[in-house]
Structures are given as C-alpha cells and as structure tokens.
C-alpha cells in the first residue's frame, strides 16, 4: 500500500495566504501571538509589513481587523477556533458581522484533534456559534487541497467568512484533476443508494473509510462532503435524503448546532428522513494524542462504521 500524503489544514492556510498575498497587496494577516501554531509564520516571513501581531488579545484583534477592512484591507484574522469563535464571539458578531465587513477569520486547532492540550483548547462549538450569525459564511475544508481553495474563495467573497482548520495532519483526498471548490455546493465523493453520509472537515476521510467497510457488508453508502456549513447545500441534502431514505452526519464538532443540526433542520422542513448524528456528544474533550482521541470519540473510520451499522440494523 502506498503512503497516503497527509497535511494539516493549518499548514494549507499559511501556504495559501502566501500565494494569495503575492497576488493581492490589500491582504493582511493578523495574529494573536500564535503565528507559529496557526502557520501564518510563512506569510510573516514573506510579507513582514503585512503581518500584524496583536499580542494575546483576540477581542482587540477582531476589532482592528474590522477597522482595517473599512479602509480597504482584507484581513485574515488568525487564532485558535476556541479564541476566534469562543472568546471573541461578540466582537465577531458585533464589530465584523453586523456591519458585514470584509474580514476572514482563519480558525485553526478546531475540534478534539487538537490533542494533548485538552478540553480547554478543543473547540467543538465553533460551527454552531458562527453558523448562527447572520451573513456569515462558514467553510470547513476536508484536506490540503480544499483548504487552499477555501482560503482563495474566502478572499474572493465580499463579507465575513469563518474558516475552520485543524492541527492534525490529515489525508489528502481531493487530488483529482477536476476538483473545484464552489462555496455552498456539497461534493458527492461516492455514489450509493442505501444511505447518505454527509461529512465535513477531517471526518470526510473517516466517512469514506466507513463507506468502504459498509460496502463489504453490502451497504452502499453515498458520501457527500459538505465543506460549506453555511450556506448549506439544501438542494443536495434533500435530494440525497430522498434518494437513499436514510441519513448520517459526521463531524468533529458537537452534535449540537453544527453540520448535524444544519442537515436536521433542512430535512425536518423539506424531507423528513431517519437521521443519525455522529460527532462529539454533549461533552468536553480531553488530553491525548489526536488519533487516539478520534478513535475514542468514534470519529475515525472504524468508529463511524460501527455507529452507522448500529443505526441501519
């Protein structure tokens, strides 16, 4: 078996910023003393004058980005998801989203795959928080290729965008010649007639692995990558649910408020379908190596497979 290429999407974020920074003079990157971890250090090295370290003050950083955006800059604000969506929630809501300013929030270290740092730094609530803000676009890319494309798309969109990246190196799954990132459009990665698995972020890979195992059991699962949590691709969600009659959602996020909720909302209104949400249950995370935590919380391929089997039996 050949070695699967793995890249952490936070690295993709930093690299994409460098590429975009070369094309666009108005792109600036803000950090709160975490450039080494958010991987924007490469941008800082390339464009020191356009990298602004705000110190350990995330609330102020959001406001500075808001102010700069009113003067023509396109700021990418970088910090951990916990501090971007959690600590600075109200600044994002009131200083950035309410005036619909052109600020991009690059949130790294999302979910339990933060690993050893533990629950205080494992944000499993960011999608719920950001999704509820009017006018906010929410991207949760699944791999290196999609993450880079999402950063570019975020720059091209006019308005606030929340981008979710991970710390853990994850398999590259979108290295196909015809891959295209279209905001708000889900990507069908595998056709199947028995059940649809809607997955997002690093769980897209887990879903694909689970689908392989299901196929061996004679269950043909359709796998859809939902990289845009908001606006949700309602059309594809509803159509897939009608086709397969059963639906599972998989995310490295609380089952409350994220992809699972978004899909449930759409289906409850348009096509009520038996649904099971796989994700972090109503609990905090804990310390441990990322891979072990994903296994423990049932978010690796085997865990997703097992839960789907229980749902369909």
């Amino acid at each position, binding site marked *: 078996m050949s070695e699967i290429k793995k890249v952490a999407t936070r690295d993709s974020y930093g690299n994409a910023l460098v590429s975009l920074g070369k094309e666009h003079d108005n792109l600036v990157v803000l950090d709160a003393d975490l450039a080494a971890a958010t991987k924007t250090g490469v941008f800082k090295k390339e464009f020191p004058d356009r990298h602004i370290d705000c*110190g350990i003050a995330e*609330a102020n950083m959001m406001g500075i*980005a808001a102010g*700069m955006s009113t003067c023509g800059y396109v700021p990418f604000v970088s910090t951990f998801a916990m501090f971007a969506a959690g600590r600075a929630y*109200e600044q994002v809501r009131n*200083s950035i989203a309410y005036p619909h300013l052109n600020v991009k929030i690059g949130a790294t270290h999302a979910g339990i795959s933060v690993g050893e740092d533990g629950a205080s730094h494992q944000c499993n609530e960011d999608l719920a928080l950001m999704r509820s803000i009017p006018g906010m676009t929410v991207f949760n890319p699944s791999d290196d290729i999609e993450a880079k494309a999402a950063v570019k798309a975020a720059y091209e969109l006019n308005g606030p965008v929340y981008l979710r990246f991970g710390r853990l190196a994850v398999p590259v799954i979108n290295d196909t010649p015809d891959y295209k990132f279209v905001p708000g459009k889900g990507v069908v990665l595998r056709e199947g007639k028995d059940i649809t698995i809607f997955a997002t972020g690093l769980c897209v890979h887990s879903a694909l692995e689970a689908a392989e195992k299901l196929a061996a059991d004679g269950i043909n699962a359709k796998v859809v990558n939902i990289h845009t949590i908001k606006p949700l691709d309602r059309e594809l969600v509803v159509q897939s649910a009608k086709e397969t009659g059963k639906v599972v959602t998989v995310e490295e996020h609380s089952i409350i408020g994220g992809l699972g909720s978004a899909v449930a909302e759409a289906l409850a209104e348009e096509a009520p379908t038996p649904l099971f949400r796989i994700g972090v249950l109503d609990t905090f995370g804990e310390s441990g190596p990322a891979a072990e935590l994903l296994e423990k919380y049932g978010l690796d391929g085997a865990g997703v497979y097992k839960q789907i089997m229980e749902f369909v039996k």
Partner: protein
Amino acid sequence: MNDLELEKTAVKIRKGIVTAVHAAKSGHPGGSLSAADIFTYLYFEEMNINPQNPKMENRDRFVLSKGHVAPGLYSALAHRGFFPVEDLKTLRHTGSYLQGHPDMKHIPGVDMSSGSLGQGLSAAVGMALAGKMKKDSYRVYALLGDGEIEEGQIWEAAMFAGHRKLDNLAVVVDNNNLQIDGAIAEVCSPYPIDKKFEAFGFNVISVNGHDFSELRRAFAEAKDTRGMPTAIIADTTKGKGVSFMENNVSWHGKAPNDEEYETAMEELRKAGEALCQK
C-alpha cells in the same frame, strides 16, 4: 468656526438630541448632551469630511465607541448636512435608518457600527493602523465613555495603539463621572484615567469638555504630537445644557415626556438667544 459660532451650533446639536430622544420615547440623553460640544467641535471644526461624499477616500474617521450616545452623533451629522435634520424624529422607530446604536450600513457619515461597549476603540485603532500602512494622511477620532473604559478591550486597544505609536489617533474620554449604576468612582473606579493612558504610551491632555478654546488647543496638540497617540480626557457634565438632566444619573437612558421636552427645549432656546446677544 470661531468659539461663539461653535457654541451656537452646539445649542442646535443639543436641541436635536432632545428632539430625537423625545420622539423615540427612549434613548440616552445624558451622555449625548455631555458629549455635545465634543461632537460639535469634531464635526464643525476639526475633521476633514464631506457631507456630499460621506465615503470620501482620505476623510478623517470617527468611531463612537460609546455607541449609546448615538443621538449626539446623529444630531451632529444631520446638522452638518449628512442627512435631513427632520429625520432625527425617526430615531429608534421601526423601519428608520436611525438605529438605536450607530449602523454604518445605513447611516451616511457613520464610519463604524458600534454600541457594544469597549469594541469601538479597537476598530479606530485598526483604521489608524491602516492609515499608517497606506501612508494616508487622514486622522482617526474615537469617543469613549468614562464608564466604558471599565471594559478590558479598551486597554487591549490602548496597548496596541501605544505600542504601534499611532499618532494619527486621538481618543476622547467623555468624563462625565456617571454610569448607569451611579458614580464611576463608586461603581468600579477607572481613575486615574490620565495616568492609565500615560502608562499605555499616550500623550494625555486634560480639558474642560465644554470649553471650545480648550478643545481647540487639545486637538491642535494631538495633531502636532508625533510618535504617540493622544488621549483627551474631557471633563464634562452629564446632561449638560438641560438643567434638570445635569448631573442626574436617572437621565442616562430615559426620554423626556412631553412636558419635560417643552421645558428642555425652552431652556435651550433661551441659551441660543443669549448667545445671539453676544
């Protein structure tokens, strides 16, 4: 404008405040009136702005960090020609563009939405930083409440502004001594305000916030100061210009009834007349 003309203008601004809050049947007259002279000086003397082109590229920027005194800002903008003075009566009404707190999406001349205390200064700092990076000559002004500076984000922003030596930024603290729960010195004292801003790397100027000659000197000094932002600590009276509202915390966020409105407007009319005799 000379000081007398500014004083006459300030009376109009105050009438606009009282009219707007009365029509809205809610709002914040106390802090609007304490800052009325500051609004007047900024919008009629200090800032490089153009009511015909509110988004003029190199305009000076203003952020009302204490966003609840929107009636003061709106009255200044209206009298400066950004929108009809008559519209002040639609303040806080359903469907009106004059929202309870500043809304940059809909109100001509508003450079930043604000209202949640502590956040505006950060945006002003971002504008000042952008100006420095682009080598633009515009200046940025932010008006803070003295109660508002109890918010921690103010000091995050102040630390950044001092660190980055943003001398294109002038912060005004409307030091009227009162917040909703009482005297700021008793609730959770932010004093000494001047020493705090000094410690954060600001040039600090203390003035009487109702004296145009002092405001003129302070803003001129701010403009001439290089290598550090300026904080103007303006000693003011909450409710200034309406006798029964002055220094009375109950007028922080309450609208006058019809009778109180008539009394307030009569006082302001007389104040205006007295200035015309000068």
